[in-house]
């Protein structure tokens, strides 16, 4: 293991699951090379300029931060227990986020690509449905709305049970 790999690894292991700062996707990705990983999958959830037909100016994310962080780490640990992953990390942005900026990033790496894709999807689905983070959409017309809530409970009949399609 080369020194540069060690420092990359350390950088990645210290990723805090929520961040008030813009997500450094390129930096995170640069830190996720691994000599045993043949497949790296990165997901970035970005702010769209439209939502339900309305022009969006920016979003603002609020969280129960400590709980959100703990839950994201738990979801990552669960992914690691299900799949043989060399790398698994996720980071969610909090506060004001502009159009085209990343709100959440998930990176997974494994020997073969099936695991990296499956684990990546698993982590982002769980984060979006379960972790106490909420977005408020601020529209060009000056209005705003707490939006895009998970509404799985209308199918499952239980606010604690989700459908991950």
């Amino acid at each position, binding site marked *: 293991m080369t020194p540069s790999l060690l420092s990359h690894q350390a950088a990645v292991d210290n990723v805090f699951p929520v961040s008030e700062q813009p997500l450094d996707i390129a930096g995170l990705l640069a830190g996720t090379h691994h000599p045993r990983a043949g497949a790296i999958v990165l997901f970035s959830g970005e702010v769209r300029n439209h939502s339900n037909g309305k022009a969006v100016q920016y979003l603002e994310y609020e969280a129960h931060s400590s709980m959100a962080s703990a839950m994201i780490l738990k979801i990552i640990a669960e992914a690691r227990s299900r799949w043989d992953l060399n790398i698994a990390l996720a980071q969610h942005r909090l506060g004001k986020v502009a159009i085209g900026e990343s709100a959440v990033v998930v990176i997974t790496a494994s020997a073969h690509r099936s695991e990296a894709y499956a684990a990546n999807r698993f982590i982002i689905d769980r984060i979006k449905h379960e972790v*106490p983070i*909420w977005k408020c959409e601020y529209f060009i017309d000056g209005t705003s709305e707490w939006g895009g809530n998970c509404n799985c409970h209308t199918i499952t009949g239980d606010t604690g049970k989700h459908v991950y399609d």
Partner: protein
Amino acid sequence: MKVQVFAKLKDYFDKEFQLNANIQNAEALKEHLIRSNPAAAGILERCRFAVNDEFVDTHFQITENDTIFIIPPSSGG
């Protein structure tokens, strides 16, 4: 107990407030809040409760020093 709410709940309640009513558990807290602000019933019925960074069920026994977090459905990502 101390209560902390998030997101859309802030349209109905202060972000943080103290409650000294005799409230036994999370379900009773929800009912108390619906009585105090019936317009919040819809969103409250879809919320979960958390204590110490963990979700708790509606039968969770609340003690005086607890901080109860009321968690609307997630909309992260």
